[in-house]
């Protein structure tokens, strides 16, 4: 029985409990949201955020940080709304190229032992510049199949919920349960030990960055599916949202301690926090601060739990 309430279990329960608390508050403030239609509207924009958060999680898992994911998702969105729509082959080639570019970034960071913050900060401007080149003025059109996927109305359960569960589940199976995923996570925990056991850290870093690129691409495509068109600045917010999402979901900046399920929950929590504050009719000048306050409260709870754990 005591095992059920151990700090570790509590720490694991914190993200879903925060999400549940927020949902209940929203249902109470705005009962209209407690419907298929309401949940759909409330959560659909959380899907691309969740995908970007997963991308960020792969990077954080190997003790790096990606400050370019927002710019990257914007670029993907621009490519999706233009090339992928008009000349699918070119579009696919470009998106695959972007994933390869991400893997090469990982290699560069590892081989030259560069701080990823600096490299990705620089890359964020590169991505943004490319996005403006691809789509100088807002516009473009989402490919039909992406649009119809993102606006799918399955019976019973709203699409955003199904999508979130699938994303979290698939990544969880891969990263947390598979033999390969274990090695990838180990690289965040103790890279030296991995190297001594004969694994190539270079390959691991490249794989993690490529995975991040892959999910960044998915995020951009999902976003365009929702907005129907793109804009070079469309996803700049995602950089900070994705980092906050991983941390909110129970991940840590170092040590390979991440959780895909937590990351998706964290992304949804952040998306809902915005809605919650707007339902509260809070002055917009206070909203960013209030969003930060929600983050601080959840993280403070986590620190409290960890402290009680350390005391034992």
């Amino acid at each position: 029985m005591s095992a059920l309430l151990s700090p570790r279990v509590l720490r694991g329960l914190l993200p879903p409990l925060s999400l549940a608390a927020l949902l209940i508050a929203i249902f109470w403030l705005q009962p209209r949201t407690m419907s298929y239609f309401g949940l759909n509207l409330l959560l659909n924009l959380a899907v691309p955020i969740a995908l970007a958060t997963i991308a960020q999680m792969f990077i954080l898992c190997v003790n790096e940080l990606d400050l370019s994911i927002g710019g990257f998702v914007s670029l993907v969105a621009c490519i999706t709304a233009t090339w992928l729509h008009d000349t699918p082959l070119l579009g696919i080639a470009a998106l695959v190229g972007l994933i390869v570019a991400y893997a090469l970034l990982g290699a560069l960071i590892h081989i030259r032992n560069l701080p990823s913050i600096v490299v990705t900060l620089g890359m964020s401007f590169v991505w943004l510049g490319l996005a403006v080149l691809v789509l100088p003025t807002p516009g473009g059109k989402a490919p039909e199949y992406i649009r119809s996927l993102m606006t799918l109305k399955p019976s019973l359960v709203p699409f955003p919920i199904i999508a979130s569960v699938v994303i979290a589940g698939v990544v969880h199976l891969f990263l947390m349960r598979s033999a390969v995923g274990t090695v990838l996570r180990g690289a965040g925990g103790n890279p030296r030990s991995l190297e001594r056991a004969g694994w190539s850290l270079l390959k691991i870093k490249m794989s993690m960055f490529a995975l991040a690129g892959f999910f960044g691409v998915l995020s951009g495509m999902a976003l365009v599916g929702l907005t129907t068109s793109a804009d070079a600045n469309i996803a700049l917010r995602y950089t900070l949202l994705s980092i906050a999402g991983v941390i909110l979901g129970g991940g840590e900046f170092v040590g390979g301690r991440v959780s895909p399920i937590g990351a998706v929950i964290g992304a949804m929590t952040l998306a809902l926090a915005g809605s919650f504050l707007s339902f509260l009719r809070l002055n917009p000048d206070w909203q960013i601060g209030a969003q930060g306050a929600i983050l601080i409260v959840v993280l403070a709870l986590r620190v409290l739990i960890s402290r009680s754990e350390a005391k034992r």
Partner: protein
Amino acid sequence: MRTFTKAALLATVAAVAALPGQGAWADTSGKRIALSNNYAGNSWRQAMLRSWDKVTSQAVSDGVVAAADAFTTAENQVTEQAAQIQNLILQGYDAIVINAASPEGLNGAVQEACDAGVTVVSFDGIVTAECAWRIAVDFKQMGKDEVLYLADRLPEGGNLLEIRGLAGVFVDDEISAGIHEGVAETGKFEVVGSVHGNWAQDVAQKAVAGILPSLPEIVGVVTQGGDGYGAAQAIAASGRDMPIIVMGNRHDELTWWKEQKDANGYETMSVSIAPGVSTLAFWVAQQILDGADVPKDLTVPFLRIDQDNLEENLANTEPGGVANVEYSLGDAQGVIAGAM
């Protein structure tokens, strides 16, 4: 010009007043209208929100509508505003008036609103979704008007300096396109230099000061608003003859113009969109809810200031603000009738 517009509007109001269905204010008394705004960080937007507040609170207390709330996103981002619009749908508003962060990026959310039976009226920053109404500023025409005015004043033509807005924003592209169209049409001007002033006087001043040494003599400066005063400062500092700088209704621009006018009879014109256009959008939304037949595409009249009504407009403009006018239901009906 302004007085003329007003007169024309009043005339159409009189005509519309006779139409059946008019005056049924009670029909919208239970309706709720929301303003979704993406940015509040400059004087124009502040004035826009103030006008909205002034006109709609009167309308609410008069019982025209049940509520007219303004929402501004915390950050000027497409994704933020899309989420905000979806939240407004969930809050059960009957109409959403939008000043959009992107003409295309919000179409998904706008479509959701339309599908949920919400009336969507966009203005200034318009959206392209087919189901939404647009109260567009003909920015292209604005740019062209500037050149036409200069052509009038300078029959023998000459060199022009163009000050552009924020790169990558469609308003900038539109105004610039209009300017270049005007130049091509009149055939007597050449744009010899182009800098980005970001609609801010300090940026414009730096940019103009930077490009001036490389320019031949210029006879006119075409601007986008907010940048005229900075341009004047930079040119004055260079010791060149003051060209005709087209102004953009900002208080600092009008003040400088007034000083020059008093000192040496300097003559120019000033044109921009009145921030009160939000109130026009409000009345249009109210009319749609009221069941009026409103075309999807409407055009906002410009607020133009000329040599003779400069003092009057300057007196009505707050320091740091922009010349403004608030629209009435009658004005809205006039605009609607004009587009039919």
